[in-house]
């Protein structure tokens, strides 16, 4: 029985950082010191017996010196609304860090990060990791409207920003994948480039196409419904590109992922 993975963290602060978007900073040495970018936590929705499943959230950032970590989330349904109403000093019943993490090729010379909406969550920690390795970064970040952008000043420190909004209120009007295509078309030498993406399924689909077309390695952090987060329920199936029919046709998002090489998984459009 290792005490590390299932435990309680203490909420230090909680603040609204964008429309319907909150940042919770919590004290927990274990998560703070060990988490890698792309990993996630399963958090129990407090005071709500009827909500059985924990809720999965990417580890947004860590402050190892302070023993704290952040999650960044959007209020979607009952669970996230309850989390948004937590008071400082409440206990968070957490499970994690879980899952694999983004993998950095030795030969990587430029990281191209593509985020849609709350898909931005895992990339703060990643950028800190990559900054330590002095890898140049491009951040393609699209949201619906400008009040949904999170942490732009911080991201700007790490990466060149390419922003888009559906309503045109900031940056390019339209999809962030348009900006990505343009960028790659302009820079024909793709050697040493790695793509990292997290966001809604249609965006993943598009990025997969773009990556294939430019033959750039791309990793996606994938979201599925999850009952457990640690391989027990086998509910978080992700179809494999090269299935062994009737034997092995699916990965598990929580255990084999959430980060996948995009060539290996089928993304429905």
């Amino acid at each position, binding site marked *: 029985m290792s005490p590390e993975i299932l435990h309680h963290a203490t909420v230090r602060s909680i603040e609204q950082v964008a429309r319907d978007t909150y940042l919770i900073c919590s004290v927990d040495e274990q998560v703070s010191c060990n988490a890698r970018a792309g990993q996630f936590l399963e958090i129990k929705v407090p005071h709500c017996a009827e909500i059985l499943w924990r809720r999965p959230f990417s580890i947004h950032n860590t402050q190892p010196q302070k023993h704290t970590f952040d999650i960044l989330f959007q209020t979607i349904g009952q669970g996230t609304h309850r989390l948004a109403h937590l008071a400082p000093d409440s206990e968070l019943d957490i499970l994690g860090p879980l899952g694999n993490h983004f993998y950095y090729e030795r030969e990587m010379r430029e990281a191209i990060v593509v985020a849609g909406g709350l898909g931005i969550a895992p990339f703060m920690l990643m950028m800190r990791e990559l900054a330590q390795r002095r890898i140049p970064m491009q951040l393609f970040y699209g949201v619906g409207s400008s009040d949904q952008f999170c942490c732009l000043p911080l991201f700007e420190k790490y990466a060149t920003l390419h922003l888009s909004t559906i309503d045109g209120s900031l940056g390019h009007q339209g999809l962030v994948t348009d900006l990505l295509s343009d960028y790659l078309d302009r820079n024909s030498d793709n050697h040493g480039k790695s793509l990292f993406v997290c966001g809604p399924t249609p965006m993943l689909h598009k990025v997969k196409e773009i990556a294939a077309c430019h033959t750039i390695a791309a990793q996606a952090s994938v979201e599925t419904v999850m009952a457990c987060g640690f391989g*027990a329920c086998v509910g978080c199936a992700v179809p494999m590109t090269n299935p062994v029919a009737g034997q092995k046709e*699916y990965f598990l998002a929580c255990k084999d992922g959430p980060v996948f090489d995009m060539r290996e998984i089928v993304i429905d459009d």
Partner: protein
Amino acid sequence: MIDLSVQIGPLTLKNPVMTASGTFGYADEFVDFCDLNEIGGIITKTVTPQPRAGNAPRRIVELPYGMLNSIGLPNVGIENFILEKMPFLQTLKTHIFINVAGTDEEGFAYCVCRLEDVAGISGYELNYSCPNVKHGTSFSSDARIAERVTRNVRKVTARPVIVKLTPNVTSIAEIGRACENGGADAVSAINTVVGMSVDIKTRKPRLSTIIGGYSGPAIKPIALAKVFELAQNLSIPVIAIGGIACAGDALEFLVAGATAFQVGTVNFHEPNATMKIKKDLEFYCQKNNIVKLMDIVGSIQL
């Protein structure tokens, strides 16, 4: 010293806390959460003669106090199971029950046969009742088939055989009796209740297979009625399954006549639930001056 041990056929379990098939993997997923040797009995995820990939997503749906699943029994098949999963299970110091299913009548006895020479197995649980595979429930909704399949398994093993029953039948007692006649050492009940959910925005069923299995605390009242019915009608032990989330839930089943119980869905969100339930049972016995937990089995006042 409180005696939590219970008797399932020829086996003595150190306590009545077991894990429900398909909710505890092959136990190794839970090493971080549980002292596996403290669990009374571990039942592994269903294994079938051939490997199975399982159903297409979406496989699970959350509901208030419950969930729907349509996993489709993905597993590596009996041969790989023996090679890949048994070595870890053999290191455990508790009773290991291998849950098996066939896609036809012979499949059950076939799996059991293949496992007979494998060490570290206390017994078998036959999954007659998975609603998420074709013909999955016919074994447990037709008494003659249930009896025949049980008898065929009985012929090939001396190890204890538990038959796991579906609640989705007119008379679970009739099927249970058939299994008893076929030579089962115990029955376990219930498997999931057939259920469905529709997304009214897309007008699509939420599960890829349309219908699936309902589990979790919401099905506890149904499970209690079935377990009570079985306990009243059979003379072999009944192992309770269905919505057990705490020691209080477990006690309801023990009082109603269950000899042991399995913890299912709750393992997903409280992976140390088995530990907590065991501790709370001990505490309950202490508080109520119960020296032997087995004494409360079937103690319901009618």
